């Protein structure tokens, strides 16, 4: 009996020790995510998907507001200006910004960081285009930097801003010179509002606040911890126990959490789910525009949004159409753009194109980060096309295997898809330059000389309105020629603890703007 009491007391003490109150102090913010991507700590080894935690450790040369607009208050550069020929961009640096080592941030650090970002070690998303574009970097003063470009351009500030990838993050030259790349990659030093404390790979990354920072004032949270928790049930249990404050959840669990009064923050239109055909089109039924249109008309996008994505999605109508850029370039979805669900017309178009009896169509099916519904989605799409008489063949693969097939073009005409992260106009341009531009070869899915010509003009164009017109025209042609099957815009839910308070996760890709949540300035 005494032993039983002892065991019961022991279990009770475990339970008490593990209780939320003991686990979490009020000055800590914990974010649980299903994936950290590569988990790297060095910006040049990362890319977009490590911005969640890195944007707290590092400052960008050019800051942005939570809705992605360039801001002179949010980055190390307080102003920037081009020369008359748009080949020399001068950036004026903020005075008094310091790295976590105590050293002041100077133009030498910025030059070093940019050279590192476009160096051979870099695997970031836009190292290639920047390498092509940047001719030289000058440092006429410790608070002034000039970037000399090989071509006239407007896009340098945006490329080096928080709205895109990690190339614009500024690193401490002296620290890296003294300790080497490998030490920096394990014990990074930045100048952001939070400094690196520890990383246990596969478990968590812990950051601690600096005393005061120009971006957020005195940080509201003393520590911010990013926990890697792949299983959703576990993340939700952690939320219920009060052990995490923010976590990504699937669309199907939203109602359940709302019933329990957990605030759900949506990043609306966080990604566009779009399908495409592997090139080349020669010899394929999809060479015929009518076939491409028929495949679009056969899909009931509203039904997919409701049944596959639990209503947390909206129909999409422009192939590769990243809607966060629409505002920047003044693109409007006109009434004739939405694809109606019209199987009868789709059948007629197929018959007109000589495919009344259908044709075999390979559809790859795979899950993706942020798209647990991937395989169900692929099955649904194949189902719609089957109703037209097409003979879809579902190939279950993992994404890397599909990507190899896509890049190697081993199965022309086969279909794949991706939940492409939404982004502003420059991010969209960079995306189109890879996926809708013939010269990018492997990754191109469009192969249209007219679009190629417009994309080539964007990089060299220095008139903002002309850039906007070019981008609008690219979208109009992508839609007019049905270069892909845009399906839905996905709204991504993030559940928060009941005590978190107001939080605007913003509309910058792969960035939660936690620094705004942690700010004492708000």
């Amino acid at each position, binding site marked *: 009996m005494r032993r039983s009491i002892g065991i019961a007391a022991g*279990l009770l003490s*475990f*339970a008490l*020790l*593990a*209780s*939320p109150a003991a*686990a979490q102090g009020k000055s800590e913010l914990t974010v649980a995510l299903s994936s950290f991507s*590569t*988990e*790297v700590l*060095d910006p040049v*080894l990362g*890319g*977009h998907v490590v911005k969640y935690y890195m944007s707290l450790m590092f400052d960008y040369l050019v800051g942005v507001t939570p809705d992605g607009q360039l801001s002179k208050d949010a980055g190390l550069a307080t102003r920037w200006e081009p020369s008359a020929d748009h080949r020399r961009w001068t950036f004026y640096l903020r005075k008094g910004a310091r790295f976590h080592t105590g050293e002041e941030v100077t133009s030498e650090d910025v030059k070093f960081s940019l050279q590192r970002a476009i160096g*051979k*070690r870099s*695997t*970031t*998303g*836009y*190292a*290639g*285009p920047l390498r092509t574009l940047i001719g030289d970097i000058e440092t006429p003063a410790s608070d002034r930097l000039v970037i000399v470009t090989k071509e006239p351009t407007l896009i340098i500030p945006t490329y080096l801003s928080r709205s895109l*990838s990690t190339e614009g993050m500024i690193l401490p030259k002296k620290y890296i010179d003294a300790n080497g790349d490998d030490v920096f*990659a*394990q014990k990074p030093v930045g100048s952001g509002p939070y400094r690196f404390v520890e990383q*246990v*790979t*596969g*478990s*968590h990354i812990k950051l601690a606040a600096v005393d005061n920072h120009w971006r957020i004032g005195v940080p509201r949270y003393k520590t911010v911890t990013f*926990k*890697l*928790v*792949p*299983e959703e*049930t*576990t993340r*939700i*249990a*952690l939320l*219920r*126990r009060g*052990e995490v404050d923010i976590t990504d959840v699937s669309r199907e669990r939203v109602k359940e959490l709302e019933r329990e009064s957990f605030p759900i923050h949506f990043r609306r239109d966080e990604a566009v789910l779009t399908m495409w055909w592997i090139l080349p089109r020669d010899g394929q039924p999809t060479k015929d525009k009518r076939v491409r249109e028929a495949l679009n008309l056969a899909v009931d996008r509203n039904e997919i949004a409701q049944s596959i994505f639990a209503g947390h999605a909206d129909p999409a109508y422009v192939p590769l159409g990243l809607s966060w850029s629409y505002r920047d370039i003044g693109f409007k979805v006109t009434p004739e753009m939405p694809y109606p669900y019209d199987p009868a017309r789709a059948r007629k178009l197929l018959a007109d194109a000589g495919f009344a009896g259908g044709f075999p169509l390979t559809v790859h099916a795979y899950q993706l980060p942020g798209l647990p519904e991937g395989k169900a989605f692929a099955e649904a799409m194949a189902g719609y096309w089957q109703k037209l008489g097409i003979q879809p063949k579902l190939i279950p693969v*993992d994404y*890397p*295997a599909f*990507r*190899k097939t896509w*890049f190697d073009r081993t199965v022309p005409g086969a279909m794949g898809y991706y939940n492409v992260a939404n982004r502003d106009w420059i991010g969209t341009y*960079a*995306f189109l*330059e*890879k*996926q809708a531009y013939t010269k*990018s*070869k*492997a*990754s191109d899915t469009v192969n249209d000389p007219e679009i190629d010509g417009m994309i080539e003009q964007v990089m060299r164009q220095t008139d903002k309105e002309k850039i906007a017109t070019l981008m609008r025209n690219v979208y109009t042609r992508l839609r007019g020629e049905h270069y892909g099957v845009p399906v839905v815009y996905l709204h991504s839910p993030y559940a928060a603890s009941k005590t978190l308070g107001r939080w605007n996760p913003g509309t910058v890709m792969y960035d939660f703007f936690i620094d705004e949540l942690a700010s004492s300035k708000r």
Partner: protein
Amino acid sequence: MARFVFTRLVQSLAALAILSVVVFILARATGDPLHLILPMSASEEDYANARRYLGLDRPYVEQYLSFVGRALTGDFGTSLRARRPVGELIAQRLPNSLRLGAFAMTVSLLLAFPLGVLAAVWKGTGIDRAAQVIAVLGQSLPTFWVAIVLIEVVAGRLQWLPAGGIAGFASYILPGFTLGWFVVAGMMRLLRSGMLEVLDSEYVKLARVKGVVESRVVWVHALKNALIPVVTFAGIYFSILVTTAIVVETVFAWPGLGRLAYEAISSRDFPVIQAVVLTTAAIVAVVNLSVDCVYAFIDPRIRYGR
């Protein structure tokens, strides 16, 4: 004994050498890791740069010899995904897996011993049937499902225990139980059948005739001799617990070797895959060897190499 140990060591090293070739080939057969490391916007030049930087542009034979040469000095190279020394990643994760494995083993021993012994002693009764049910459930319920249910109910709803991660002793209970339950089943059955055989033996009958207390007959005289198959089983299962806890470690967000293996396979991280497999194989070899040695102490009739 020394000759036996030496022979087994040589066999283990040969197995590791063969395994290193197999895993080297199979890891590369799964695809190009650069498709995962590099962003979609990466150009062919970026691919070439990364391939050169990571040493993937060299001929396979050269890559293998370089890997083996470094591995012999304890250097397994650098993770393609995390860009950190593989040895460091394994050093960070292995202790977590060993601790969880040891905890799960303790749980399973604490449950299997009384259940196995009682099921044998009370053969055919309700206790025996209950133990059988526990055994069948342990082996038939998928670990993934057990883990999810425990997290949902015990951690999420009742909030008695942590849901995941390593945060003190309490965080070991749910993953330890999930892992251990599967082992309980097999161990309990082995112990039950061993005990049934021993309880029917002449020396046990003699002990009873001599008036030895029944509890002493069961727990001392009989149990000791029923342990040999259980020890073999426990040794093998400990290595399995440590090295194949991929599902449990993933569900419970446990940063162990299993999770590392899962992450490495998902991202085609060759150096990590190779290192994890070889480390795993080494653990299995060491545990098996240790089990063989323990035999001699449990049963003096066993003499190796004679």
